[in-house]
């Protein structure tokens, strides 16, 4: 009887969790027409107007992987490859498995003569790679499910002698999975909030945050960096090789920032 009521509570938890997931969905119908209209402009080669419409949609507080993908394509057609790359990066948070997105992303990098840039230790990068195909929300739910199953195993271990035989192995696997997915989620959240893309053709990274300071190194359009600090109109950034410096805010855009 007690186990039944506990199971009911866990089911209730899962239902409520998914409710909070789906509560985030927005009604797409009202804004759908704007998207199709932007697509029409794109087909006509009016990339400027298409960009404006896609951005209007984003400004209204909505976002999707396809929307960022199309916006990235429009920028690419206009020759603004840094901005194209920025929007492909944003799209990867929603449709990471999309082969078209991967292809366009890689082609843009190739056009810019850039290699994919990774941050963190080798172990961290390996973990990120393992969970690369998951969206940020899916990874969050996955972590939560692993956590619930882990708790369930602990509960069942109290009452069921059958579970005790596999408890050690199962808990080890679940704990490993929990830690790995937690590391991946943390990395993805950092990636979202700290990563930025250079959108100007070339950016001078200086030793100090003022215009007259000496240039330490240069960044090409499309380079990915990690923003670590800010001061007035300057961002302090870290390059993938660990070099740090200050760059004018106009030269790069945060992945989590406003659309450009």
């Amino acid at each position: 009887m007690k186990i039944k009521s506990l199971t009911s509570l866990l089911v209730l938890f899962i239902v409520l969790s998914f409710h909070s997931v789906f509560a985030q969905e927005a009604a797409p119908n009202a804004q759908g027409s704007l998207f199709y209209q932007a697509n029409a402009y794109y087909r006509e080669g009016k990339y400027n107007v298409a960009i404006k419409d896609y951005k209007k949609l984003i400004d209204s507080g909505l976002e999707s992987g396809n929307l960022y993908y199309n916006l990235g394509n429009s920028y690419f057609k206009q020759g603004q490859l840094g901005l194209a790359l920025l929007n492909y990066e944003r799209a990867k948070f929603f449709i990471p498995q999309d082969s078209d997105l991967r292809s366009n992303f890689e082609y843009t990098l190739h056009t810019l003569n850039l290699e994919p840039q990774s941050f963190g230790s080798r172990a961290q990068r390996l973990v990120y790679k393992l969970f690369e195909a998951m969206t940020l929300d899916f990874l969050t739910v996955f972590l939560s499910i692993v956590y619930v199953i882990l708790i369930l195993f602990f509960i069942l271990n109290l009452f069921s002698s059958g579970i005790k035989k596999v408890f050690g192995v199962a808990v080890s696997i679940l704990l490993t999975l929990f830690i790995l997915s937690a590391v991946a989620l943390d990395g993805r959240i950092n990636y979202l909030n700290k990563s930025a893309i250079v959108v100007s053709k070339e950016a001078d990274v200086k030793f100090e945050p003022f215009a007259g300071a000496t240039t330490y190194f240069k960044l090409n359009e499309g380079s990915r960096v990690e923003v670590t600090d800010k001061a007035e109109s300057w961002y302090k950034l870290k390059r993938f090789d660990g070099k740090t410096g200050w760059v004018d805010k106009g030269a790069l855009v945060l992945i989590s920032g406003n659309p450009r």
Partner: protein
Amino acid sequence: MSRLKNKTINFKLLILCLSLAFNALSSAGICFAKEFNFEATVDRNKLSLGSSLQLALAFDDVQNMPVPELPAIDGFQARYLGPSTMMSIVNGKSSSSITHNYLLLSTKVGNFKIGPFKIEHSGDRYTSNQLSVEVLAGQVENTSQPGNQAEPLIKDLNDRLFLIIQTKKKSAYLNEIIPLTIKLYINNLGVRDIQYPEFSHEGFSVGRFDKPNQYQEVYKGVNFDVLEFNTSIFGLRPGEFKLGPSNIKCNLIIQKQPRGRSTFNSNIFDDFFGRQEIYPVNLQSGYIALTVLPLPAENRPEDFSGTLGNFNLEVSVSPLEVKVGDPITLTMVVSGEGNLDTVGAPKLKSEAGFKIYEPQIKQAGNQKSFEQIIMPMSAQVKEVPMISLAFFNIQSGEYKTITRGPFPIVIVKPEKEEESKVVENKLPAVVPAVQEEKLGRDIIYIKENCGHLARKGEYLYKNRIFLGLQVIPLLIYLLTFIIYKRQRRFKTDLKYARQLLAPRKARTGIYQAKKYLDKADVDKFYDTLFDTMQEYLGDRLHLPSKGITISVIDEHLGNNVVDAQVLVKLRDIFRDCDMVRYASSQLTGENMRDSLKKLEEVIDYLQRQKI
């Protein structure tokens, strides 16, 4: 006449007597004041101007000798250092000596005599030997015994072991290479474990130190062993900066001065037992002021990328005859004087018609080479465009651009023989020769639907409801764990189980008793009441229920364990229960209600008490 002669003889006798008396008195005086000798020694008798020596005045067989006041010594300034005493017992006879030490600082060049010193003490006169000391203007060769060096060496260490930091320039342009030298000067000292220098270099990038050079140098007229550390620096931003001070850590080796005058005081003996002392020393140099000048903005070429120096450029192109899409290698060698780190790849004036790859860079000595692959993408290409290198010449203070080329090349069309090979394959005539498939690449087309639209920035990991819900499984687990623990105790701990069940069973009994009360069944009512009370008390006190009597209750609940009123009520219930056996007719409904109420009150009270 004879009288005058006698008077003269008498006067001579008087003078003789007087002189004899005077002599006798004089010799008596000598007997009262004794004459002693004492030894004066110096630690070296040859020294350079400005350096010091140690003078020791040793008085043997004297226990108390006050500090002698030295007369002015020509060529030296004296300072008293302190006394040292020594006592020895030989064949049961003890002797003591005291030595007063002075530091003599040389003030003049020349040969000087020190002493003899004459000192009076307690009516005795003490006279020392005389010493000769030579003060030289230059450096003195180390002729004194190593064993006597230790203390003086430490005192004038800064003159004999020091560090100098120097650059050839006091001002330089941004990124201009400035040679920097740090010299360690050592004069007649044992120094080892010398570490590489460290120095403060804010505003400069510093290269690695080369292997140090070792040579001898005369500095301010003195010969020094010099260890020279060389590196190069360049300014990172314009401005005025301080370079240094630099530090070098090393160990100073000093022979320990032997104490006493032992017969075993030989160098061999000392060396054998390693009577050396190591003093860790951290030497510090001064600093130098350096000005880093910005590069002039005037006449700066467009393709200038910060290259500083005076360079030459040699370019070779190979091969000069290629097909479209075939690689051509440009070998560009930049040589000359300057900061090669700032030299970027020379640039093509135009990249039209070519696909350009990143160059491979090699740097050796004063030469930096760039090997760059370029591919002609069209048959219209006739030449490799002009290649230029812009740099800022530090000597002339001007920008300069070197250009090479253009280099004519020939783009060869595919020969027809290749087409004829297709015919030789004996394929049917209708089959055309296989055309090379031209593969292009572009981005993949846009998405036709907008996909799953979500509120911007509202990710699940930020959702408070979702995060709050994550606590629930943990709470469920804690709750389950508590239940599990209770159940286990219930099964294994009989006392706990009885105490836990006691109120429930009592409630059932009271309910049953109330039924009998309603039916006015006195016997059954009191039987049930008695059983309920026995059962409850047995469970609470973890005793056999049937053995609960008033004496057992007194034993366990008496002695102020419970309120006296409760005991009275229990006794009343027992009395009523007993009475029903002999005189049940005397007990009315009122008595039954009263007994029931008392039992309820007792149980209620005991439930609230920890027994």
